[in-house]
């Protein structure tokens, strides 16, 4: 009975994130549009886009290799697995121990590795631009993320997300400067990783300013749908990650009653709404950076994370 329950709750998590990801993107777009006094697309527009793309033919470049066709599936699967391992409405789900936070980041790293390869497969100039800039951004964002994880893990005494979330929800944590710094660093990294303003513009189609869009320029049809879906999943992943580490209240444990799980889920929706709203406000109030300002921006995140770890080392030994 309990095994069935575990499998059900894990399955619920996987389908929940898959279902919610386009909605979150739609919500952020809607809020951004409203802030700019436009009406904006309906909330469900991302779902319609995905369905429309899935139904279309794939138009493939003549010299695209088999790798180019496999990569969307790999990216989607990798991101989906990664996001299913982040606690959303409940901690300690059946497979939560499969990968810890470092492994989740690395899994996203694998997805990005493939995406950058896809940009280079057809051999066009724009694909190369995208891949080259993407790895530059990643080469700073990934270490910043890892060091942020270090500082969080040192506070919580674990890299296992369920345990981290549980610890953060308990009274033992207190107010920590390192946590504040880790939060800022994580936010910067999340903006960079999800190709949001000020690092990249998710709505751009101006060739020379785009990074993410340039890499996936040659994709169409179902492949493009999968890639869009995986970037939506990635946004959801980072928002859930921030929610579960820095706003850990109300997350249920896996063996809690159904009512607790449902209330956990409701709270989770609330957190997503708040964070999505904040993201939209932030994006509308800031301008996109030049490409070579990004390293400084991400470097600041790296330094903050390092500082947080350092402070943690010190105050941990008082």
């Amino acid at each position, binding site marked *: 009975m309990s095994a069935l329950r575990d499998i059900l709750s894990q399955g619920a998590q996987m389908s929940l994130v898959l279902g919610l990801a386009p909605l979150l993107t739609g919500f952020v777009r809607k809020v951004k549009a409203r802030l700019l006094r436009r009406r904006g697309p309906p909330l469900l527009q991302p779902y319609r886009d995905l369905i429309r793309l899935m139904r279309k033919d794939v138009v*493939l470049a003549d010299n695209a290799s*088999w790798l180019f066709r496999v990569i969307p599936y790999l990216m989607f699967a990798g991101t989906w697995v990664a996001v299913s391992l982040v606690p959303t409405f409940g901690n300690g789900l059946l*497979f939560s121990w499969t990968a810890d936070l470092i492994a989740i980041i690395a899994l996203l790293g694998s997805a990005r590795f493939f995406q950058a390869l896809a940009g280079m497969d057809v*051999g*066009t100039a724009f694909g190369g631009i995208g891949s080259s800039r993407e790895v530059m951004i990643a080469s700073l964002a990934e270490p910043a993320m890892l060091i942020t994880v270090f500082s969080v893990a040192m506070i919580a005494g674990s890299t296992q997300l369920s345990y981290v979330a549980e610890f953060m929800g308990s009274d033992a944590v207190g107010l920590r400067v390192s946590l504040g710094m880790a939060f800022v660093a994580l936010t910067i990294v999340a903006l960079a990783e999800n190709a949001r303003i000020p690092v990249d513009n998710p709505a751009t189609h101006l060739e020379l300013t785009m990074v993410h869009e340039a890499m996936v320029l040659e994709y169409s049809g179902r492949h493009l749908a999968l890639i869009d879906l995986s970037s939506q999943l990635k946004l959801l992943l980072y928002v859930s990650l921030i929610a579960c580490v820095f706003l850990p209240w109300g997350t249920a444990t896996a063996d809690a009653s159904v009512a607790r799980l449902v209330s956990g889920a409701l709270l989770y929706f609330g957190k997503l709404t708040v964070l999505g709203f904040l993201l939209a406000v932030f994006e509308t109030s800031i301008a996109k950076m030049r490409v070579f300002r990004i390293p400084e921006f991400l470097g600041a995140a*790296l330094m903050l994370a390092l500082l947080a770890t350092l402070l*943690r080392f010190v105050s941990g030994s008082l």
Partner: protein
Amino acid sequence: MIAVALWSVAVLLALAPAGIVLSRHPRGSIILYGGCLIATSALCITALSDLFDVPHLTQSATLPVGLPWLGAHFRLDALSAFFLVVVNLGGVAASLFALGYSRHEDSPGRVLPFYPAYLAAMNVVVLANDAFSFLVAWEFMSLTSWAMVVSHHREAENVRAGYVYLLMASFGTLTLLLAFGLLASGAGYDFDAIRASHPSAALTGMVVILVLLGAGSKAGLVPLHAWLPLAHPAAPSHVSGLMSGVMTKVAVYGFVRIVFDLLPEPVWWWSMVVLLVGGPTATLGVLYALMQRDIKRVLAYSTIENIGIIFTGLGLALAFKAEGLDWVAALAFTAAMLHVFNHALFKSLLFFGAGAVLGATGERDMEKLGGLIHRMPTTAVAVLVGCIAISALPPFNGFVSEWLTFQAILLSPQLSSWGLKLIIPAVGGLLALAAAFAAACFVKLYGISFLGRPRSDVAASAHETDRFSLTAMLMLAALCLLAGILPGLFIDALAPVSKNMVGNVMPHQVGLQWLTIVPIAESRSSYNGLLVFLFVALCGTAAASAIHRFASDRLRRTAAWDCGYPDPNPTIQYSASSFSQPIRRVFGSVVFAAREIGEMPPPSSPLPARFQVELRDLIWDGLYAPIAIVIGFATDRINILQFLSIRRYLTLVFVALIVLLLVVAV
């Protein structure tokens, strides 16, 4: 089983002179590499069976060769057995690869005799149990590999590489000789006697520094790495694979054997030195790799990075051991050893891939390659696996060892020394940077040479390599995946090694549910490569089948879109240098003193516009060049001695004799 090991080494040694004869024979190389394949397989199987037969593991033997009063001592313990596996696994793969690859060799006589001797020398280093045999084998290993580095001696670059290599190898042996001299002063050359002796703290400190210099110069630690990216690519590809994948590991073995085994309990500052060298080595190595456009040179620089990761693990192990935290030391040490094994696998694989590309196109320069995934599909798959594994991405093996290293770093607040507390997070940051750069570097390597459109005619007309080479590469690729999804097996196999060296072991892994690995406790961290792999595979397949069934599975081929400006000219693609330009611009001005010089002629002028990038190796300029100048200056002064008369030479000899007698008398 040490007898089997020694006999196999003898077979290898006997194959060396046979190589001279066989090199004239049309099928000679097949016979020779076949012989090497059998001998190394025997060694590998022996060592493996020993590693799993813990109670009867340690065996010694003495042969009546070498120094008259000493003989040659050999010993097979857990550490030797593990490194025998690494060496001979590399040997098996390289020999198998060479069965096909050696057909491209135009002068086999320059490689064939040295190859088995080289393999034998590496095995003897690992088996030796006295300083004399260790050093002789070490030097023999250096010389045989040097001979193969200069096998294509008509290229001026290779001659220079050989020269620098020979110098650095002599330097390394010299420092090791001094280290053993210091150790042997109270005990003699036998390792057993050294283990039993109690050297003073000052002496052991000097030995650690000397060994770090000696083993580090062979392994390629920054700033002693200058020879490595010159020499490793110059050799034929199967030898490059052995040098990068295996010989650097033999150097790691030398370090571990002396510092962890022969010396008494470590002191905290040793670890500080090792960490301060290891962390920057990892980051700098891969940053250099990113700037290269020669495939084999990229791989050689990336070896430096991986050596940095290994030494970081060893430094952590030393730190924890010095503070009595055996169980964390075991974690860090196991991580380092696992990375030794993993790197041997994927670096050999990648060098073989580079060899296959070289054989098919005659090019090592990435700017002339491209689109090889269409022409060499199987090689492309194997190299892709190698690239993912070396970038430390799950579910392959490189990730596991880096993950374990990070877990050890996370335990460092438990240390009491302030210096270490502040250095270890910084080193963690450097490792994280290195991992991210490595991914960038291998996206570049694979994307430029295997994807895109061919940038030259040779790349457009390349053909798939032979079956032997493919078998060797696919075998290594399969092992990379296996070690990535079932890391518990490999961690458990390392238990006796870590028991011997740091006195504790990691928790037993096999038998945990779903073959998860849990380095400390489940509440701290766990990782399950198998499940990650299965989940990704399942989700991907499910998505594919669902979409193909319910949505659309139609596909049309047409010209590339490229925002409406497709250009058939392949030079429009991103090149290797332009790919790394953003990273060069961000980090290059500091690390390489990079300068970009653009010349734009006025609009009416018919001259072409030029763009030039200048990168300088600051370590070479700051360290090697001044030393070379000083040596040059000194030798110029001493040079007058070459032109003395007979009488003056005799006077010199006479004076020297008198001085010596005086020294003895006083």
